[in-house]
Protein backbone atom coordinates (compact mmCIF):
# COMPACT_ATOMS: atom_id res chain seq x y z
CA UNK A 1 0.00 0.00 0.00
CA UNK A 2 2.77 2.36 1.06
CA UNK A 3 4.76 1.46 -2.01
CA UNK A 4 1.80 2.06 -4.25
CA UNK A 5 1.17 5.55 -2.89
CA UNK A 6 4.84 6.43 -3.31
CA UNK A 7 4.62 5.35 -6.91
CA UNK A 8 1.43 7.36 -7.30
CA UNK A 9 2.97 10.46 -5.74
CA UNK A 10 6.12 10.27 -7.82
CA UNK A 11 4.22 9.69 -11.03
CA UNK A 12 1.89 12.58 -10.31
CA UNK A 13 4.88 14.79 -9.53
CA UNK A 14 6.53 13.65 -12.74
CA UNK A 15 3.38 14.45 -14.67
CA UNK A 16 3.29 17.93 -13.13
CA UNK A 17 6.94 18.53 -13.93
CA UNK A 18 6.36 17.34 -17.47
CA UNK A 19 3.64 19.95 -18.00
CA UNK A 20 5.76 23.04 -18.70
CA UNK A 21 7.61 21.13 -21.38
CA UNK A 22 4.34 20.49 -23.18
CA UNK A 23 4.11 22.35 -26.46
CA UNK A 24 1.79 25.33 -26.62
CA UNK A 25 -1.43 24.57 -28.48
CA UNK A 26 -1.41 27.50 -30.89
CA UNK A 27 -4.82 26.72 -32.39
CA UNK A 28 -6.49 26.60 -28.97
CA UNK A 29 -4.72 29.81 -27.92
CA UNK A 30 -5.82 31.62 -31.05
CA UNK A 31 -9.38 30.37 -30.67
CA UNK A 32 -9.53 31.65 -27.08
CA UNK A 33 -7.97 34.96 -28.11
CA UNK A 34 -10.64 35.37 -30.76
CA UNK A 35 -13.47 34.34 -28.44
CA UNK A 36 -12.27 36.80 -25.81
CA UNK A 37 -12.20 39.65 -28.35
CA UNK A 38 -8.43 40.12 -27.88
CA UNK A 39 -8.03 40.49 -31.63
CA UNK A 40 -10.27 43.57 -31.65
CA UNK A 41 -7.45 45.64 -30.17
CA UNK A 42 -4.39 43.41 -30.63
CA UNK A 43 -2.81 41.64 -33.58
CA UNK A 44 0.03 39.15 -33.62
CA UNK A 45 2.62 41.28 -35.37
CA UNK A 46 0.82 44.40 -36.57
CA UNK A 47 -0.02 47.49 -34.55
CA UNK A 48 -3.61 48.10 -33.50
CA UNK A 49 -5.04 50.14 -30.61
CA UNK A 50 -3.19 47.79 -28.30
CA UNK A 51 0.36 46.53 -28.66
CA UNK A 52 1.00 43.51 -30.89
CA UNK A 53 1.65 40.16 -29.19
CA UNK A 54 5.18 40.33 -30.55
CA UNK A 55 5.68 43.61 -28.71
CA UNK A 56 4.25 42.11 -25.52
CA UNK A 57 6.51 39.07 -25.83
CA UNK A 58 9.53 41.33 -26.33
CA UNK A 59 8.55 43.45 -23.32
CA UNK A 60 8.42 40.45 -20.99
CA UNK A 61 11.38 38.64 -22.50
CA UNK A 62 13.77 37.28 -19.89
CA UNK A 63 11.50 38.16 -16.96
CA UNK A 64 10.95 35.29 -14.60
CA UNK A 65 7.46 36.43 -13.61
CA UNK A 66 6.34 37.18 -17.18
CA UNK A 67 3.65 34.50 -17.15
CA UNK A 68 2.31 35.64 -13.81
CA UNK A 69 2.22 39.32 -14.85
CA UNK A 70 0.52 38.64 -18.16
CA UNK A 71 -1.99 36.31 -16.54
CA UNK A 72 -2.88 39.05 -14.06
CA UNK A 73 -3.21 41.50 -16.95
CA UNK A 74 -5.83 39.40 -18.69
CA UNK A 75 -7.74 38.20 -15.64
CA UNK A 76 -8.04 41.12 -13.22
CA UNK A 77 -9.58 43.86 -15.44
CA UNK A 78 -6.72 46.35 -14.98
CA UNK A 79 -7.03 49.99 -15.99
CA UNK A 80 -5.11 50.68 -19.17
CA UNK A 81 -4.40 53.76 -21.28
CA UNK A 82 -5.58 53.63 -24.91
CA UNK A 83 -4.20 56.62 -26.75
CA UNK A 84 -4.32 58.77 -23.63
CA UNK A 85 -7.74 57.67 -22.45
CA UNK A 86 -8.26 55.34 -19.54
CA UNK A 87 -10.10 52.12 -20.27
CA UNK A 88 -10.71 48.85 -18.50
CA UNK A 89 -8.85 45.97 -20.11
CA UNK A 90 -11.25 43.14 -20.89
CA UNK A 91 -10.76 39.80 -19.19
CA UNK A 92 -10.16 36.59 -21.03
CA UNK A 93 -13.40 34.65 -21.55
CA UNK A 94 -12.34 31.50 -19.70
CA UNK A 95 -12.12 30.30 -16.11
CA UNK A 96 -9.98 27.30 -16.99
CA UNK A 97 -6.47 27.99 -15.71
CA UNK A 98 -4.82 25.55 -18.12
CA UNK A 99 -6.56 27.22 -21.05
CA UNK A 100 -5.51 30.68 -19.85
CA UNK A 101 -1.98 29.49 -19.25
CA UNK A 102 -1.80 28.11 -22.78
CA UNK A 103 -2.90 31.50 -24.16
CA UNK A 104 -0.38 33.38 -22.02
CA UNK A 105 2.42 31.06 -23.09
CA UNK A 106 1.42 31.41 -26.73
CA UNK A 107 1.48 35.22 -26.52
CA UNK A 108 4.87 35.14 -24.80
CA UNK A 109 6.19 32.83 -27.52
CA UNK A 110 5.48 35.31 -30.31
Amino acid at each position, binding site marked *: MMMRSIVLVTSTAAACLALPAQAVDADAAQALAKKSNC*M*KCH*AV*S*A*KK*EGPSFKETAAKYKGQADAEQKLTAHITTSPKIKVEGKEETHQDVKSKDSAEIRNLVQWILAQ
Partner: protein
Amino acid sequence: MSKLLDRLRVRLARYSALKLAVVASLLGLFVGAFVFAGTVAGLAWTNTEPFCISCHSMKDNVYAEYKGTIHDSNRSGVRATCPDCHVPRELGPKLVRKFEASFELWGAMTGKLDTKEKFEKHRYEMAKNEWISMKSTDSRECRNCHSREGMSKELQSEKAQARHAKATEEGKTCIECHFGIAHKEPDGPGPQELFGKQAAP
Protein backbone atom coordinates in the same frame (compact mmCIF):
# COMPACT_ATOMS: atom_id res chain seq x y z
CA MET B 1 -9.89 31.68 -102.69
CA SER B 2 -10.48 34.56 -105.13
CA LYS B 3 -12.70 32.26 -107.19
CA LEU B 4 -14.80 31.60 -104.15
CA LEU B 5 -15.14 35.33 -103.46
CA ASP B 6 -16.12 35.96 -107.08
CA ARG B 7 -18.83 33.34 -106.86
CA LEU B 8 -20.09 34.87 -103.62
CA ARG B 9 -20.18 38.31 -105.21
CA VAL B 10 -22.21 37.00 -108.16
CA ARG B 11 -24.65 35.27 -105.83
CA LEU B 12 -25.05 38.30 -103.55
CA ALA B 13 -25.56 40.60 -106.56
CA ARG B 14 -28.91 38.89 -107.04
CA TYR B 15 -30.23 40.54 -103.86
CA SER B 16 -30.88 44.23 -103.30
CA ALA B 17 -28.44 46.18 -101.13
CA LEU B 18 -31.17 46.90 -98.58
CA LYS B 19 -31.98 43.23 -98.16
CA LEU B 20 -28.32 42.42 -97.68
CA ALA B 21 -27.91 45.21 -95.13
CA VAL B 22 -30.88 43.92 -93.12
CA VAL B 23 -29.58 40.34 -93.13
CA ALA B 24 -26.05 41.49 -92.17
CA SER B 25 -27.29 43.58 -89.23
CA LEU B 26 -29.53 40.78 -88.00
CA LEU B 27 -26.59 38.40 -88.18
CA GLY B 28 -24.40 40.91 -86.35
CA LEU B 29 -27.02 41.39 -83.67
CA PHE B 30 -27.34 37.65 -83.21
CA VAL B 31 -23.58 37.10 -82.86
CA GLY B 32 -23.29 40.16 -80.61
CA ALA B 33 -26.02 38.90 -78.34
CA PHE B 34 -24.23 35.56 -78.04
CA VAL B 35 -20.89 37.19 -77.22
CA PHE B 36 -22.57 39.46 -74.68
CA ALA B 37 -24.43 36.59 -73.04
CA GLY B 38 -21.19 34.61 -72.96
CA THR B 39 -19.33 37.47 -71.28
CA VAL B 40 -22.05 37.96 -68.68
CA ALA B 41 -22.18 34.22 -67.98
CA GLY B 42 -18.38 34.07 -67.75
CA LEU B 43 -18.26 36.98 -65.32
CA ALA B 44 -20.96 35.39 -63.19
CA TRP B 45 -19.32 31.97 -63.23
CA THR B 46 -15.90 33.29 -62.23
CA ASN B 47 -17.57 35.17 -59.35
CA THR B 48 -18.70 32.13 -57.39
CA GLU B 49 -17.27 30.41 -54.36
CA PRO B 50 -16.91 27.01 -56.15
CA PHE B 51 -14.90 28.68 -58.93
CA CYS B 52 -12.57 30.41 -56.45
CA ILE B 53 -11.85 27.22 -54.54
CA SER B 54 -11.44 25.09 -57.66
CA CYS B 55 -7.81 26.13 -57.26
CA HIS B 56 -5.90 24.32 -54.50
CA SER B 57 -3.80 27.24 -53.36
CA MET B 58 -7.04 29.05 -52.48
CA LYS B 59 -8.95 26.07 -51.09
CA ASP B 60 -6.20 24.78 -48.80
CA ASN B 61 -4.99 28.12 -47.49
CA VAL B 62 -7.14 31.23 -47.46
CA TYR B 63 -10.44 29.39 -47.82
CA ALA B 64 -9.62 26.98 -45.00
CA GLU B 65 -8.80 29.98 -42.78
CA TYR B 66 -12.00 31.78 -43.77
CA LYS B 67 -14.18 28.80 -42.77
CA GLY B 68 -15.85 29.46 -39.45
CA THR B 69 -15.18 33.19 -39.43
CA ILE B 70 -18.09 35.59 -39.06
CA HIS B 71 -18.30 36.17 -42.83
CA ASP B 72 -18.66 32.43 -43.46
CA SER B 73 -21.01 31.38 -40.71
CA ASN B 74 -23.22 33.47 -38.46
CA ARG B 75 -26.60 33.58 -36.77
CA SER B 76 -28.64 34.71 -39.77
CA GLY B 77 -26.73 32.84 -42.48
CA VAL B 78 -26.03 35.88 -44.65
CA ARG B 79 -22.58 35.14 -46.04
CA ALA B 80 -19.89 37.16 -47.72
CA THR B 81 -17.98 34.75 -49.94
CA CYS B 82 -14.65 35.33 -51.76
CA PRO B 83 -15.88 37.65 -54.55
CA ASP B 84 -17.94 39.78 -52.17
CA CYS B 85 -14.74 41.06 -50.60
CA HIS B 86 -12.26 40.60 -53.42
CA VAL B 87 -14.12 41.57 -56.62
CA PRO B 88 -15.64 45.02 -57.13
CA ARG B 89 -19.37 45.09 -57.92
CA GLU B 90 -19.33 48.00 -60.38
CA LEU B 91 -18.77 46.90 -63.98
CA GLY B 92 -15.72 49.07 -64.75
CA PRO B 93 -13.59 48.18 -61.70
CA LYS B 94 -14.85 44.60 -61.96
CA LEU B 95 -13.55 44.24 -65.53
CA VAL B 96 -10.21 45.76 -64.48
CA ARG B 97 -9.95 43.27 -61.60
CA LYS B 98 -10.87 40.37 -63.89
CA PHE B 99 -8.21 41.47 -66.34
CA GLU B 100 -5.62 41.57 -63.55
CA ALA B 101 -6.75 38.11 -62.47
CA SER B 102 -5.70 36.72 -65.84
CA PHE B 103 -2.10 37.25 -64.71
CA GLU B 104 -2.90 35.28 -61.57
CA LEU B 105 -3.88 32.40 -63.87
CA TRP B 106 -0.33 32.46 -65.15
CA GLY B 107 0.88 32.19 -61.56
CA ALA B 108 -1.45 29.23 -61.01
CA MET B 109 -0.16 27.50 -64.15
CA THR B 110 3.49 27.99 -63.25
CA GLY B 111 2.87 26.85 -59.66
CA LYS B 112 3.78 30.10 -57.90
CA LEU B 113 1.73 29.15 -54.82
CA ASP B 114 1.40 25.40 -55.18
CA THR B 115 2.80 24.44 -51.78
CA LYS B 116 2.08 25.72 -48.26
CA GLU B 117 5.65 27.03 -48.00
CA LYS B 118 5.36 28.97 -51.25
CA PHE B 119 2.01 30.37 -50.15
CA GLU B 120 3.44 31.52 -46.83
CA LYS B 121 6.39 33.08 -48.64
CA HIS B 122 4.01 35.28 -50.63
CA ARG B 123 1.33 35.78 -47.95
CA TYR B 124 2.52 39.16 -46.74
CA GLU B 125 2.93 40.56 -50.23
CA MET B 126 -0.57 39.39 -51.24
CA ALA B 127 -2.17 40.75 -48.05
CA LYS B 128 -0.38 44.04 -48.50
CA ASN B 129 -1.70 44.36 -52.06
CA GLU B 130 -5.22 43.85 -50.76
CA TRP B 131 -4.73 46.44 -48.01
CA ILE B 132 -3.36 49.00 -50.45
CA SER B 133 -6.25 48.49 -52.84
CA MET B 134 -8.80 48.61 -49.99
CA LYS B 135 -7.26 51.80 -48.67
CA SER B 136 -7.37 53.40 -52.12
CA THR B 137 -11.12 52.74 -52.47
CA ASP B 138 -12.05 53.54 -48.86
CA SER B 139 -12.73 49.80 -48.38
CA ARG B 140 -15.36 49.79 -51.13
CA GLU B 141 -16.04 46.06 -50.91
CA CYS B 142 -16.66 46.28 -47.13
CA ARG B 143 -18.96 49.21 -47.70
CA ASN B 144 -21.04 47.26 -50.23
CA CYS B 145 -22.66 45.70 -47.16
CA HIS B 146 -21.53 47.81 -44.18
CA SER B 147 -22.35 51.49 -44.22
CA ARG B 148 -21.03 53.95 -41.66
CA GLU B 149 -24.39 55.71 -41.58
CA GLY B 150 -26.26 52.43 -41.24
CA MET B 151 -24.47 51.35 -38.06
CA SER B 152 -26.72 51.90 -35.06
CA LYS B 153 -24.44 53.27 -32.40
CA GLU B 154 -26.53 52.19 -29.47
CA LEU B 155 -26.05 48.55 -30.45
CA GLN B 156 -22.26 48.94 -30.39
CA SER B 157 -20.11 48.70 -27.30
CA GLU B 158 -18.82 51.94 -25.84
CA LYS B 159 -15.33 51.05 -27.00
CA ALA B 160 -16.51 50.41 -30.55
CA GLN B 161 -18.41 53.71 -30.61
CA ALA B 162 -15.34 55.63 -29.47
CA ARG B 163 -13.05 53.86 -31.95
CA HIS B 164 -15.43 54.41 -34.88
CA ALA B 165 -15.86 58.10 -34.04
CA LYS B 166 -12.11 58.53 -33.89
CA ALA B 167 -11.59 56.62 -37.15
CA THR B 168 -14.12 58.83 -38.94
CA GLU B 169 -12.46 61.92 -37.54
CA GLU B 170 -9.04 60.78 -38.74
CA GLY B 171 -10.34 59.67 -42.14
CA LYS B 172 -9.49 56.04 -41.53
CA THR B 173 -11.02 53.28 -43.60
CA CYS B 174 -12.39 49.88 -42.45
CA ILE B 175 -9.35 47.79 -43.39
CA GLU B 176 -6.97 49.81 -41.24
CA CYS B 177 -8.41 48.24 -38.09
CA HIS B 178 -10.41 45.29 -39.44
CA PHE B 179 -7.58 43.34 -41.05
CA GLY B 180 -6.83 39.66 -40.68
CA ILE B 181 -10.49 38.97 -39.89
CA ALA B 182 -11.12 36.33 -42.56
CA HIS B 183 -7.59 35.07 -43.14
CA LYS B 184 -4.50 34.58 -41.01
CA GLU B 185 -2.68 37.76 -40.13
CA PRO B 186 0.52 37.90 -42.19
CA ASP B 187 3.83 38.46 -40.47
CA GLY B 188 4.90 42.06 -40.97
CA PRO B 189 3.79 45.67 -40.59
CA GLY B 190 0.00 46.06 -40.66
CA PRO B 191 -2.13 48.73 -42.35
CA GLN B 192 -1.66 51.19 -39.46
CA GLU B 193 2.12 51.05 -39.85
CA LEU B 194 1.83 51.21 -43.65
CA PHE B 195 -0.63 54.07 -43.91
CA GLY B 196 -0.03 55.91 -40.66
CA LYS B 197 -2.30 58.90 -40.36
CA GLN B 198 -2.86 59.11 -44.11
CA ALA B 199 -6.55 59.90 -44.71
CA ALA B 200 -8.80 57.82 -46.96
CA PRO B 201 -9.49 59.35 -50.39
